[in-house]
């Protein structure tokens, strides 16, 4: 039984530990301390200005990831929380 518990613990840890390494293609936008980041709402506003319909935004590594739709196409936009520069655009379809 002890061996079984060990096997399952190793299995669970390795499955969950290895997944985040694959989690996202892009996550390095700034080295700036989180406390001095600009608010996420400003990244959303930039996406709106650029013509995207903004669905949601979240923090991905040191980036703001904004989900936007433009002309029926899906995009993930990565902004730097430091200066709100657009670091990467990923088209999802």
């Amino acid at each position, binding site marked *: 039984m002890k061996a079984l518990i060990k*096997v*399952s613990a190793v*299995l669970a840890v390795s*499955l*969950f530990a*290895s997944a985040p390494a*694959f*989690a996202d*293609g892009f996550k390095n936008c700034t080295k700036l301390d989180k406390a001095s980041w600009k608010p996420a709402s400003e990244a959303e506003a930039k996406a709106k200005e650029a013509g995207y319909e903004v669905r949601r935004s979240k923090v991905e590594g040191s980036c703001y990831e904004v989900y936007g*739709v433009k002309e029926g196409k899906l995009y993930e936009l990565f902004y730097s929380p430091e200066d709100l520069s657009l670091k990467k655009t990923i088209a999802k379809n």
Partner: protein
Amino acid sequence: MVKVWDFPLRACHWALAFFVLLAWFTPSRFDSLHRFAGYTVMVLIAFRIGWGIFGTRFSRFHAIGRRLRAAPAYLYKLLRGRSGRYRGLNPAGTAMMVALLLLLAVSTITGWMSTTVRFFGVPWVEDTHGYVSDAVIVLVVIHVLGVLAMCVLQKENLIRAMITGWKRRHR
């Protein structure tokens, strides 16, 4: 020895295992592979449900209600090291199968929804997909642990049984 698991069931089982793990390791970065894995899982669970209706004896869902009702008592006894032997799925295995099929259905459907303009980036869709997919992996680990425990308790190699289809007869 007695034949329990038919070939389509075994093929479906191992294909599911492969594509669920493939999907687990491919989100975002390997988008097209992740989608391919997800759609394949969809097809496989659809097949499994169909096979649960039209398949051979031990693949069919006919005893599902009875075995689900027996599952709590069975698990209670199992935790004390006592296991009743079933030739097909035991009540705990039945509960696991139902839980996995349901969660995989929710996971694949919300995953597919995230690729549509209507539901892309809608928080509840993406969050449900994430949490339910995590739950699938937790269940997979419990499933493997449960099978290994049953191997010990019943002194039978159940992994080989799922490969060859054969199990030993009742004493």
